[in-house]
């Protein structure tokens, strides 16, 4: 493996290309579209939506009764009875996705000291919300004075990362990244930077969220940004976001190590761009959103013309979609009209802190298979959203490099750039 090269810091905006590159060698997911990354991608390319009537929680107090839930999921089929009480739904999702990713990578982290050279960084916007909700209900509504003794370790936002680490023996840097809807992209960007810098050689990273609870649904309703029909990103009739849940977990590996062992490289994590609007807690700012995309291109050594597809943040809110559109135009100039842009949230919903990880499945699929997943539920164009959104059906088109955007409340922007594995 080449030695790590540290980036020079300075006031001048310079692009430093680390010699060390990052290969993605494992992918796992559990979503409203399926319980594996394979099933999730298959649904995306077919344009199947996982949005539907809520089944897993009581809906009598909800005005919005739809979500993209993980359905038909029996945790006991995956996790043994002794261990299961330790895991909130958010950790169950993370662990199941991680198993798929690690199995695909073919890596044994318990041999050759790999675990010590591995990071485990998992994003979550909320953490163990189901456990928190349930214990609060018992305590306040039922006046039950006893809290379950595992409440703390179920609720803490770092639990998903820790359960993955324990399962696979990952004993390097392990923590959660919490930045609302940008959590997963921030986590994966951090993981890639750790490999590039030489701090670690491997990372198991992504995001997990289990946010479809009565109180979270009500809190989103109160913000008046959730749709009650379905999620229709970028179109005129869009009425807002639809909550989703699930996890996406990936194995990142130092490029030469992956090559040397003959691993299948799903894609190259080329670079990332992270900015903050530092302006408004909810209203996005075009210039800093664009700068996150520009920084991702620069960090990945990519020109705007190299990008063939963008997996958009595309929440279908009145504010996001036109701002993201303008930011894409600002970043790409005339090439914006040659780009395909889609929001797969129209299928897997908005899984908040897991969003970027679910969308990484789409981005990798586009690169590997030359199929661009669609923006479903698209009716009429909105003049304020004037890009090619791949409406309603997937499209065959070979692409060499892609961006995946995640933007969060608080004004946080995290963009990742992927390249086709050569």
């Amino acid at each position, binding site marked *: 493996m080449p030695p790590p090269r540290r980036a020079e810091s300075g006031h001048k905006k310079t692009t430093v290309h680390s010699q060390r590159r990052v290969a993605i060698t494992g992918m796992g997911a559990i979503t409203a579209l399926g319980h594996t990354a394979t099933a999730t991608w298959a649904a995306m390319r077919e344009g199947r939506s996982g949005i539907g009537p809520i089944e897993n929680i009581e809906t009598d107090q909800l005005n919005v009764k739809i979500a993209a839930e993980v359905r038909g999921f029996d945790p006991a089929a995956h996790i043994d009875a002794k261990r299961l009480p330790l895991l909130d739904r958010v950790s169950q999702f993370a662990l199941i996705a991680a198993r798929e990713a690690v199995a695909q990578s073919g890596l044994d982290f318990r041999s050759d000291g790999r675990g010590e050279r591995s990071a485990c960084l998992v994003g979550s916007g909320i953490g163990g919300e189901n456990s928190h909700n349930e214990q609060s209900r018992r305590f306040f509504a039922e006046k039950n004075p006893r809290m379950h003794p595992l409440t703390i370790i179920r609720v803490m936002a770092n639990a998903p990362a820790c359960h993955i680490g324990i399962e696979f023996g990952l004993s390097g840097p392990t923590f959660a990244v919490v930045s609302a809807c940008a959590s997963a992209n921030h986590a994966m960007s951090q993981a890639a930077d750790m490999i590039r810098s030489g701090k670690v050689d491997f990372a198991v990273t992504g995001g997990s969220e289990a946010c479809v609870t009565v109180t979270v649904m009500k809190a989103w309703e*109160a913000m008046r940004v959730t749709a009650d029909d379905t999620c229709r990103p970028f179109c005129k009739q869009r009425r807002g976001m639809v909550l989703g849940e699930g996890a996406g977990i990936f194995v990142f590996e130092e490029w030469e190590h992956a090559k040397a062992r003959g691993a299948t490289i799903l894609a190259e994590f080329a670079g990332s761009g992270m900015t903050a609007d530092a302006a408004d807690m909810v209203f996005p700012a075009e210039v800093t959103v664009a700068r996150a995309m520009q920084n991702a291109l620069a960090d990945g050594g990519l020109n705007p013309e190299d990008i063939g597809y963008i997996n958009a943040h595309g929440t279908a809110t009145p*504010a996001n979609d036109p701002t993201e559109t303008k930011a894409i135009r600002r970043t790409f100039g005339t090439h914006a009209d040659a780009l395909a842009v889609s929001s797969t949230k129209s299928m897997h919903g908005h899984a908040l802190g897991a969003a970027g990880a679910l969308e990484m499945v789409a981005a990798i699929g586009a690169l590997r298979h030359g199929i661009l997943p669609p923006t479903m539920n698209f009716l009429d164009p909105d003049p304020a959203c004037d890009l090619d959104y791949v409406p309603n059906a997937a499209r065959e088109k070979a692409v060499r490099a892609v961006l995946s955007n995640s933007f969060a409340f608080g004004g946080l922007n995290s963009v990742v750039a992927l390249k086709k594995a050569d």
Partner: protein
Amino acid sequence: MSQVQDTVFAIIAKEANIDASKVTLDSTLKDLEITSLDAVQIIFEIEDHYKITMPDRDPNFDTNSVRGLVEAVEKLVAEKAAGDAPAAQG
């Protein structure tokens, strides 16, 4: 000025941190420089005060203007009073 109007004006002034004298029936939330985050707080305070649920992007309600807000609240309060009347006797 109806009592509902009074209350809605007061809530708008408080949540948006503006002088109540600036609020008129003819103002739009935009005129008053009320951000989307202030607007959802105003709606929450109105809902919580009257124990009603304001419509969300219902084309029959104009909640972007003060007049529209007041009319929507008056309608919902009247509907609630009609609906609650028998229960109130029990």
